[in-house]
């Protein structure tokens, strides 16, 4: 059963504009949610996580994510995109004792 979904294969945003990368989850109980980024020719890097507490989580490189329980979403956001944000972004959720990753969303920031 799919535990995390990233509905967009690719997102294009102009530099300086706000960006959103979407993620929805489907696990029982309280979800533990993560965002990772994969820059070209580099390994995956942790961005942020939601365990409990405030619904707005702040992470690395100016990114933040908003947990919305009613919509079962955990969208990644940034107020002003940089060209250097262009990368592959993965949403992930804990299911049982494993971390399950989405298929990824490729973010293109256009100069």
């Amino acid at each position, binding site marked *: 059963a799919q535990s995390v979904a990233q509905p967009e294969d690719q997102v294009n945003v102009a530099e300086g504009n706000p960006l959103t990368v979407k993620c929805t989850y489907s696990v029982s109980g309280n979800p*533990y949610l*993560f965002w*990772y980024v994969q820059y070209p020719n*580099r*390994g*995956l*890097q*942790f961005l942020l*996580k939601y*365990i409990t507490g405030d619904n707005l989580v702040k992470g690395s490189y100016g990114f933040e994510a908003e947990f919305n329980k009613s919509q079962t979403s955990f969208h990644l956001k940034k107020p002003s995109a940089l060209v250097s944000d262009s990368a592959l972004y*993965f949403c*992930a959720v*804990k299911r049982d*004792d*494993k*971390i*399950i*990753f*989405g*298929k*990824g969303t490729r973010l293109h920031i256009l100069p």
Partner: protein
Amino acid sequence: GAGVSQSPSNKVTEKGKDVELRCDPISGHTALYWYRQRLGQGLEFLIYFQGNSAPDKSGLPSDRFSAERTGESVSTLTIQRTQQEDSAVYLCASSLARVPYNEQFFGPGTRLTVL
């Protein structure tokens, strides 16, 4: 300190051959994970090790895949009788303890190509 390292970075092999992929986790990290990333796909969980507990092998796709870990150090992923569909990037990650409280640190991956 040093991050997670993996070797080789690239491996090209012929169908039917066995391959061994290595992962050196960050020192002190008790949890170690293997994932597979096919071209254009997400990360597919394969196996994880946590301390001295029995590994969770639930993600291994077939009995041709196996993995070992010596204590809390290096791990090897072995694929026997490789098939073309095994071509992928194999990623290793480690963390201080079992998730969810600690993020995973990923290695650069081993790109496996089966001809």
